């Protein structure tokens, strides 16, 4: 029963936890450790009959906290090359690689905000609850992150329409 529970949870949410840790830590071994720790913690709590979304949010919040602990040992980190983690190459790789590197260069709070917003599709209010900060802060981080990324990607051919075209960017300050 324990194996089945873990298997189901990891199958459904393992990739999300792993990607978040990877984006934050930029190190595969550390990301795997965090993943293991997060799911073991879930197991220690038994099988609280959570709604799926609640469970996922709990896992990601726990992952953020675990990452913060790991991070204390790593003040500076090299960016992890995308080809090492994303499997086979595709023709968009140069473009994607530049984007990944630009995101990796953001300060951690911004990076986590961008990741949760764009990769996991959380709303700013949900991200605020997960990170324990006001929603306005999340929106400010997103706006500043977009400005920074634009700056980082400017000049190369990939910068022009990173996210501006998606129309889903939250307005700073609007609730």
């Amino acid at each position, binding site marked *: 029963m*324990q*194996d089945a*529970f*873990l*298997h189901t949870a*990891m*199958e459904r949410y*393992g*990739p999300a936890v*792993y*990607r978040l840790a*990877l*984006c934050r830590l930029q190190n*595969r071994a550390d990301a*795997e450790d965090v*993943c*293991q720790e997060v*799911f*073991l913690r879930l*197991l*220690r*709590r*038994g*099988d*609280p*009959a*959570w*709604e799926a979304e609640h469970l996922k949010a709990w896992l990601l*919040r726990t992952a*953020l*906290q675990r*990452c*913060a602990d790991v991070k204390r040992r790593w003040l500076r980190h090299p960016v992890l090359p995308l080809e090492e*983690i*994303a*499997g086979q190459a595709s023709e968009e790789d140069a473009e*994607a690689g530049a*984007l*990944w590197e630009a*995101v990796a260069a953001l300060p*951690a*709070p911004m990076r*986590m905000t*961008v*990741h949760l917003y*764009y*990769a996991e*599709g959380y709303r700013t209010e949900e991200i605020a*609850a997960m*990170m*324990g*900060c*006001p929603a306005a*802060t999340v929106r400010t981080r997103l706006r500043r992150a977009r400005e920074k990324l634009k700056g980082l990607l400017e000049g190369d051919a990939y910068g022009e*329409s*990173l*996210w501006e*075209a*998606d129309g*889903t960017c939250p307005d700073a300050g609007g609730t």
Partner: protein
Amino acid sequence: MENRYGKLMERVPMPEGLEERVLQAARREGPPPRDFRRRALRGAVCAACALALVLGGVRLGTRDGGGAPSWSLGLTACAADTGASYGAGDNAVLVFQEDLGMHWSAEGGYYTASRFQVEGDGIAEVALTLSRGELYRASAPAAAADGSFTLPVPERLGSSVSQDYDPEAVYGFWVPGAAAEDWQADPRAASRESLDALDGAVLTVEAVFDGGAVQTRRYTLSTGLLREETAADGTPVLQPTLAGDALAVHYGVCAADADATRLLEWPVAGADTVRLSAGYDGAALHDGIDIPAPAGTPVLAAADGTVAETGFDAERGNYLVLDHGGGLQTVYGQCREILVQAGDAVSAGEQAAVLGNTGMSTGAHLHFQVLLDREPQNPLAYFDAALRRALQAV
């Protein structure tokens, strides 16, 4: 919609073998806490939102001085779902989490998930008295052949009971008058509302030790919002918190040991909003709280004591440390001006500084921190329930 980052991340798979690695680690660790929820009792009501509980903290125990025999008596909170027990947290406050989904209403009453065990050495008999509501004794779950568990109806004990000591005995609070229809509409709200009947109640625990010595402990109960934090050793710890706290997702009972809990007065008259120190990965209450108020507002001593230290540093600005004895200290930072000097005696409610905006600060506020033996504590655990209710996190 063009979300190139999202697409990029979708291409990142979980490494092969990671799942197997976690499964193996889990097997090494042994089975998870037993899941009693499989076959809930008749009338069982499960709150939809329930994070599993854990509390950490210091073991309660008596602090007998001198050469008296070391009888010990204390309570531990007992997680309703896993049965794990936890000692008191900051300021000798024991926290019970209610929204575990392991409570139910039956027989016109509500068996709360707030449960405890009596622990101690050499106890022969315990007498429990609750000033409001009643107590029940939880029964051990019965295992069926198919691995599922059923939970027999607990034994109601009334408001006062005396029993032979059983270290395994788990007691819980029972609240009268839970209407079944409320529970069908919104079990979570009904559970909180029922639990609030315990607010202000006093639990008295009396232990008769082998040889006849008697020891009594009194606990004042309060109900309210809880937030979950992670202790240094990684265990989650529940903390009392305020309305408006984004991390206040739990509800439960706090039991303050009347002899060991120390209460502070509010340091900024007129200010009723609080910013809980907001780090971005899990704000920690132990870093202290910020109390915004206009610059120039008096900063009041939170308790009687002496001035241990005054000074300035880049982070805290003008700051003041008061010593209240017994290892308890309060720190006041970001002040415009300090009005006392090291060695001065101050009494509770006396103005000791002027609120300001010095140090690493963006806007006038008081940074307030509580230390016990130099270890940062959750300041909110040092304010009584009525004061906590008058405050709002922003």
